[in-house]
């Protein structure tokens, strides 16, 4: 089927996946994992922007102690929609559906994912779910918090719980299908010689993520159906009037929604492993430990959900068990951080943009993780539960961790995805601005929470104003940092210098094919003969072809 493409004067082929076909139909009906990844990139970026807009409005309200910008019920809708959009429509699909989709077949030497049509279907499901949520947003939104706790969500509120619920339900199947596709692809589509322990750690991270997507998401799906049944048929599974138990809802909800945090962070960890190895010019220290740490986090992640319910009426014995199990997650997480650090030791480190994001990730993830251990202890959690300490903790993981990883990955593979380089100065500046802006936004929230400022209120006592103004100012800087990549990435599509096949001098099959890759990924099917990250001793990365 493949015709030998003619080549350009510099030796790169004239036909690649971007110019192989033109027109809307060639995108909307494509089965090419690379094009579907780009469809996802555009969609999740839109929902990131919408979720970010909600955050801007929240931070504007919180500049002053009085609730003077929004009524309380509008503020409830703002933080709910911020959470729903960011979690279900940006963070969960984010790295897997964009970078994972594009890179997993390339990294394992396959022509495509195992089920190309299901891959396209998953994008359509995501889009339908996201549009439903958007439609609900325009029709008043939801005000229950993204957690939809019963009986508030079933018996009391009159907002678009049902529409958003159905949107999340549909998008959930998109997530399940992505995970299923990845699991089967990694099992069945590896190139000759690509053994399990030659897989890049990015692939291991996504394998672990996919396990959670396949095992966890159906539980939130059935839980949403039960909420819908309560609202539509006026029957009560979680209704105390029928002897139903609202805490059971919390159990079912967190059985998915806690592991969902690992859906966000595990792919980012996979990205960081690639970046650290590439820009330290060394194999990852303790490769197998890092690989199994991903699986360990995915498995342990299913046994810690009760730490969201320490003060929700769960028995003290359950609390103790969940507390201990939650602390165990720190072990594989710490293995990763230590091993990245050990990889950096005596490496020839170069400070390219992706590396700046990766180092930012390691620092911020460490803070987020350590505060997580604090929160796993029953006494501290009872003190800071439902305060800004919690907000700060999970934003260090989700924003400082997952989004830093996502941006680092985008900067690393952008030349491969688009065939173009972006400006070095501006991109390095963006990494620094994001890092600084992030810390100024969220570090004060640790202090606010510890001093007792509760979450989910639009007004607060005047003594908290200084820290809140700091946080809002930081959010402005952070927002600027996110806008910069948007501008120069789009700029690079037209004006960026052409990227060579391997601008970073990285190992990995994806760098052996051309940039952008041909439709079937490789001109000749690759055969793998060596473990990953075989960098020669002490050779700095090439300084060619950079802007």
């Amino acid at each position, binding site marked *: *089927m493949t015709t030998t493409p003619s080549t350009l004067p510099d030796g790169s082929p004239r036909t690649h996946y971007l110019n192989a076909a033109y027109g809307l139909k060639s995108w909307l009906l494509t089965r090419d994992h690379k094009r579907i990844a780009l469809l996802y990139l555009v969609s999740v970026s839109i929902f990131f922007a919408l979720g970010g807009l909600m955050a801007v409005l929240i931070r504007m309200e919180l500049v002053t102690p009085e609730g003077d910008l929004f009524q309380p019920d509008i503020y409830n809708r703002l933080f709910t929609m911020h959470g729903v959009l960011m979690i279900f429509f940006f963070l969960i699909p984010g790295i897997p559906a964009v970078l994972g989709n594009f890179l997993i077949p390339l990294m394992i030497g*396959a*022509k*495509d*994912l*195992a*089920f*190309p049509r*299901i891959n396209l279907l998953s994008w359509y499901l995501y889009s339908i779910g996201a549009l439903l949520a958007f439609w609900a947003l325009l029709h008043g939104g939801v005000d229950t918090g993204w957690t939809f706790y019963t009986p508030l969500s079933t018996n009391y509120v009159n907002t678009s719980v049902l529409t958003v619920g159905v949107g999340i339900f549909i998008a959930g199947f998109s997530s*399940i299908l992505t995970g*299923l*596709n990845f*699991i*089967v692809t990694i*099992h*069945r*589509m590896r190139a000759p010689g690509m053994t399990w322990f030659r897989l890049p750690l990015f692939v291991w991270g996504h394998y672990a993520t996919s396990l959670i997507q*396949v*095992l*966890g*998401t*159906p*539980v939130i*799906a*059935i*839980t949403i*159906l*039960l909420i819908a*049944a309560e609202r539509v*048929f*006026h*029957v*009560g*599974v979680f209704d105390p*009037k*029928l*002897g*139903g*138990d609202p805490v*059971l809802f919390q*159990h*079912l909800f967190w*059985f998915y929604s806690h592991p969902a945090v690992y859906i966000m962070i595990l792919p980012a960890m996979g990205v960081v492993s690639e970046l650290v190895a590439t820009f330290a010019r060394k194999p990852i220290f303790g490769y197998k430990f890092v690989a199994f740490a991903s699986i360990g986090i995915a498995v342990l992640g299913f046994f810690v959900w009760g730490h969201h319910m320490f003060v929700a009426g769960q028995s003290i014995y359950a609390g103790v068990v969940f507390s201990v199990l939650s602390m165990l997650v720190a072990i594989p997480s710490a293995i990763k951080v230590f091993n990245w650090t050990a990889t950096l030791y005596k490496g020839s480190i170069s400070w390219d943009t992706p590396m700046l994001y990766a180092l930012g990730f390691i620092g911020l993830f460490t803070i987020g993780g350590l505060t997580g251990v604090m929160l796993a202890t029953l006494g501290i959690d009872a003190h800071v539960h439902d305060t800004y300490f919690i907000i700060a903790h999970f934003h260090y993981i989700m924003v400082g961790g997952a989004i830093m990883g996502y941006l680092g990955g985008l900067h690393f593979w952008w030349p491969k995805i688009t065939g173009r380089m972006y400006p070095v100065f501006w991109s390095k500046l963006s990494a620094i601005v994001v890092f600084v802006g992030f810390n100024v936004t969220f570090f004060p929230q640790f202090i606010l929470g510890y001093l007792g400022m509760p979450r989910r209120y639009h007004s607060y006592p005047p003594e908290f104003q200084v820290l809140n103004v700091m946080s809002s100012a930081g959010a402005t800087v952070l927002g600027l940092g996110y806008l910069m990549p948007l501008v120069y990435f789009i700029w690079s599509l037209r004006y960026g210098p052409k990227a060579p096949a391997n601008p970073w001098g990285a190992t990995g099959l994806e760098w052996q094919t051309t940039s952008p890759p041909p439709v*079937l990924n490789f001109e000749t099917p690759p055969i793998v003969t060596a473990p990953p990250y075989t960098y020669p001793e002490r050779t700095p990365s090439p300084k060619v072809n950079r802007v």
Partner: protein
Amino acid sequence: MSEGHGERPGLAHHFDSYEQQKDTATLGMWTFLVTEILFFGGLFAAYGVYRTSFPAAFRAGSHELDIALGCFNTVVLIASSLTMALAVRGGQTDKGKLAAALLVLTMVLGTVFLVVKGFEYHHKFVEHHVPGPAFHFEGPEANHVQMFFVLYFALTGLHALHMIIGILLVGYVAKRAWSGAYTPRNYNFLEGTGLYWHFVDLVWIFLFPLLYLIGRH
């Protein structure tokens, strides 16, 4: 898969061999069924919690169900799994017409199950045992009995939905089998449909005792 290796019919462009394609399809279906187990699992968990909390009410609710119809439906579904297994075997041995006939038989048995289920639902409706504002139950713990019926309708309703999807799927596969689409090299879709059908059958094997046989020793 429409596009493919010109010289190897039925092999999708991104696979190297028929074996790889078959292994991939099978693993994909099994992974999907794992998802399905967790999907039903949430409801089973709720069932476990509430049955432990209200054992007497669940026994009373269970005794309202028609055990004869439940038994009959169980036999019907097991029979449909047999015809399904034989149909897959037919596809594997290049007997497309036989496979199609067996698949139609499977659809008939599935429909019989749904019709019987429909009569049971109707009966519950007449007796005001459908949960909601109109629910009525003579006896103690009426609210908790209602919880039993919430779970009864949720579990059997979800199962019935899977049956309907299964019957449509089997119909499509029967049409394809009749036109000779399945060969010993590639009957993957037929086999996947078979796995799905057996799974739905197996869910019923769990539902029947959990719902109909509480306290009947």
